[in-house]
């Protein structure tokens, strides 16, 4: 799934650029290939260009430069209603003057489908989202979660091969959101459709996607499956945007055979894996996930460099214990450990020594 070439891709962006004002670029040279049946998430902070990309794919924005292909066919000049792409909008966009049934019937009517066929399809689509009994309700009579399901059913009722979702779960509360994530994922798998999903919620991106494209500043910063994205971020932006992250700024002291020795600004030496540093003397930002930090000497790898740490605060979060420490002059170095039966409890003021496996510390670009 990770290697889709431009030729057999279901959706392809080639050198796509977009500018709204003719002065600045919102999307800068986007190249992205999406395979048929893939669940691809565009993740990024607001203003990163992800929604613009989705709108260009849907046909509501025109690319200033470059080509977008759908199923091998260039679609830059194809109007939205001829693209046959299903879309779920942020606020559902259910037509308020129509009942649920009429909302679902609309895409079928404009395709000139007969009444019997329409009714079968509407029923099937509503059953698919467990809303079979709601065909005669108006959207305003439904809860947010129900409206979300109807919006989903409407985007799927005409059997599109590609469905776009623009932050569809943004307006739901946490529990409902998690439930709907599961539902969308289930529909994606059972129907075999291709989904392009836009969100700024990294948890959503990680749990649902086959691949995630992290957007920032109009560019894809990294395009990878969720696990790669989390465990092997390719630059500082991705490392910080996805999950919690400890960062230690320093300078490369030694670099050889996939290992680097980094001298921190406070003088200590640490081990790291070089990602986008290549020469001695380069400035770098070393990134380590809070759950990969060890403080029990027997668990630390032999020969690894350690750091002195002072416990500042321990936050009890139920499943985990989140410990904030002072490390190398920084007050917000975080360690997470599971709340297990035999877990060592740290106390504020305690002085400990911490360390990690060199492959968990990634020497990234300094920002």
């Amino acid at each position, binding site marked *: 799934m990770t290697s889709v070439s431009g030729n057999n891709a279901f959706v392809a962006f080639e050198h796509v650029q977009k500018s709204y004002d003719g002065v600045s670029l919102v999307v800068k040279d986007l190249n992205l290939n999406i395979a048929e049946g893939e669940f691809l998430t565009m993740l990024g902070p607001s203003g990163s260009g992800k929604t613009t990309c989705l709108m260009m794919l849907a046909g*509501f924005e025109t690319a200033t430069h470059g080509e977008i292909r759908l199923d091998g066919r260039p679609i830059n000049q194809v109007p939205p*209603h001829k*693209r046959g792409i299903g*879309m779920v909008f942020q606020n559902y966009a259910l037509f308020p003057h129509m009942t649920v049934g009429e909302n679902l019937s609309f*895409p079928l009517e*404009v395709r000139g489908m007969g009444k019997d066929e329409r009714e079968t399809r509407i029923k099937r689509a509503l059953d698919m989202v467990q809303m079979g009994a709601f065909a005669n309700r108006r959207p305003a009579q439904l809860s947010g979660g129900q409206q979300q399901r109807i919006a989903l059913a409407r985007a799927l009722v*005409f059997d599109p091969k590609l469905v776009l979702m623009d932050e569809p779960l943004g307006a739901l509360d946490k529990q409902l959101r998690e439930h709907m994530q599961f539902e969308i994922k289930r529909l994606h798998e059972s129907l075999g459709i291709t989904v392009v999903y836009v969100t700024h919620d990294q948890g959503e991106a990680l749990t649902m996607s086959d691949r995630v494209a992290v957007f920032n500043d109009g560019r894809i910063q990294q395009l990878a499956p969720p696990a790669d994205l989390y465990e092997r971020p390719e630059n500082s932006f991705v490392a910080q945007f996805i999950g919690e992250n400890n960062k230690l700024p320093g300078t490369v002291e030694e670099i050889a055979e996939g290992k680097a020795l980094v001298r921190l600004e406070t003088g200590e030496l640490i081990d790291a894996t070089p990602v986008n540093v290549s020469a001695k003397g380069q400035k770098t930002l070393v990134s380590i996930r809070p759950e990969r930090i060890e403080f029990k000497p027997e668990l630390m790898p032999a020969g690894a460099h350690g750091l002195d740490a002072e416990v500042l605060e321990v936050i009890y979060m139920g499943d985990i214990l989140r410990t904030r420490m002072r490390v190398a002059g920084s007050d917000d170095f975080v360690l997470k450990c599971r709340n297990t039966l035999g877990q060592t409890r740290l106390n504020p003021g305690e002085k400990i020594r911490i360390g990690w496996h060199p492959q968990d510390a990634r020497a990234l670009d300094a920002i």
Partner: protein
Amino acid sequence: MAETTAPLTTADGRPLKAALAKAQSRAKRRAFLLVLPLLLFILLTFAIPIGQMLQRSVYHDGFSKTSPNLAAWFDANPQGTAPDEAAYAALAADLVLMKENRLAGEAGTRINYSVPGTRSLFTASARNADDLTPPFKEALLAADRKWGEPLIWVAMREAASPWTTDFYLTGLDMQRSADGGVEKVAETNRVYLWLYVKTFLLSAVITGICLLLAFPVAHMLATLPMAKANLLMILVLLPFWTSLLVRTTSWIVLLQGQGVVNSVLVSLGIIDESGRLAMIYNQTGTIIVMVHILLPFMVLPLYSVMRVIPPSYARAARSLGATSWTTFRRIYLPQTLPGIGAGVLLVFILAVGYYITPALVGGADGQLFSNQIQFHMTKSNWSQAAALAAMLLAGVLVLYWLYDRLIGIDKLKLG
């Protein structure tokens, strides 16, 4: 189960309803006091005058207050009785009364409304009323042969009571026939009914043109960024800040025979000197100028409704496969209906009652019903003006009722 049926009480045993009413009475009193000034204002300046206007349209005592003897004779003799000597004697006695009280003119005016050309009959006969001697029938007929005309007797019978439907009959192009029945007036004298229908037709045309012009403007305003939309909105509202009279007269400058529009067309060679278009002092002029003046009343409610329709509806429809026309017809238009309803109702009702613009630019065939009301007011025929105004009010109320039945007044959104 007993406690569910017993009325709820407060902790100290008082009924809950009474306690609630007492607790809220102070707040309610204060709220009422706040609206009291407005209530009084509306009552004094709106409800009472309208009531008085309606009363005036069916009440006129110009004749009845100086004709007690005739009234007694009419009471004693049913409709259709030929006036006998007793009737003429009563008339003579009333003419004497009119002379004494100097009310012959007023009484004559009242009869004149029903039978034109009779005012002088009363003033002349009353002047010599003291010289009349029995038999009064011969004496009066000798003074003026018109006293024998049945129409005048029918008119006097009707006018002998202050309560009358005469003014509505006139407004409906009807009159009383010599036998006391009701008939249509001669074709050449029919003014009101056609004008009434024409007023509603012209208002409908004006409303339609306003809707066609305002819809795209409102849509553009609603889709533009706020700053630009506000600037353009000022342009829409600009005419409001100019005097109605100035706006109307500036149209005269533009549209008249030697006006700007005609001159431009001639100099461009589109029309020649002899073919200058008549665009003012006729129906065309009334329509053009009233559309211009009433347009903001259409733009504003449309804009306020369109502003809150999220663009995602249209996008959703497009993504579902609808062409832009289908999207407009089935998604956008239905959602603008509250604004269309409000704008149409507002413009139409304003147009139906419009007076000054048709008076200035309407010429002969561009006059509306209100101009007739104004005509009767200047002639001091208040009752006729009131009857015509009441007819206009009835027409508007009927349309309002229809609107409520067809679309629903709760769907109205004015802003």
